[in-house]
């Protein structure tokens, strides 16, 4: 069995979808897949509802300015303040493309390992309780150990 690792740095809807389509495809090819979420990519894993946690003023501000979860992400191009993302989601629904939320659920069902970078979480003031269930929390060594065994590594 081969292994694939994907670093998800971007919090853009289109890039997140590309990452999850590759991850689901690889898992369906029988590969072990690890996705490592860092910086803006962490927003993909945020729960859509607000979670009450203790934060500093700056952390609070930061948290409010970033999209909360897969449903609220914008496009990397032609976003037009969210209008572009809405249009893209409408078209993709019509063409029967899985939503990002569905892709995440499928990835979990296929055994894709999702890891949230704890350093980025600390910097951005994101707490474990604010992220979706069924994910791991780790640092760069965990990712590197996985990458050592992998024959594909993407940075998205």
């Amino acid at each position, binding site marked *: 069995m081969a292994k694939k690792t994907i670093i998800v740095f971007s919090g853009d809807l289109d890039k997140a979808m590309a990452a999850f389509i590759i991850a*689901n495809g690889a898992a*369906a*090819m029988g590969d072990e897949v690890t996705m490592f979420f860092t910086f803006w990519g962490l927003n993909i894993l945020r729960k859509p509802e607000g979670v009450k946690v203790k934060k500093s003023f700056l952390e609070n501000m930061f948290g409010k300015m970033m999209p909360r979860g897969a449903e609220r992400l914008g496009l990397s191009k032609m976003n037009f303040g969210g209008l572009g993302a809405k249009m893209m989601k409408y078209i993709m629904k019509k063409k029967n493309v899985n939503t990002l939320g569905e892709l995440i659920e499928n990835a979990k069902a296929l055994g894709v390992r999702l890891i949230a970078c704890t350093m980025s979480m600390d910097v951005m003031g994101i707490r474990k309780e604010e992220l979706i269930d069924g994910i791991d929390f780790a640092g760069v060594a965990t990712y590197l150990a996985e990458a050592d065994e992998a024959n594909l590594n993407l940075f998205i």
Partner: protein
Amino acid sequence: MKEIKVDAKCLQCPGPIVQLFNAIKNADPGDVIVVEATDKGFYNDVQAWCKKTKNELLSLEDKGDVIIAKVKKV
């Protein structure tokens, strides 16, 4: 040995190969999975999938609006 039908019509990439993967996982060796898909990429994808997972592609037909693949679990 049985034949298992998988309707992956209307599913976009990577839906059809995910469905095929799940069907094979639950099948016994020798079982044949018949996948019907409308995703145009599936024609090449199923060949790559079989090569990689070492399952046997018995037949592959592009009927224009639907692609039908027969895969035997090894």
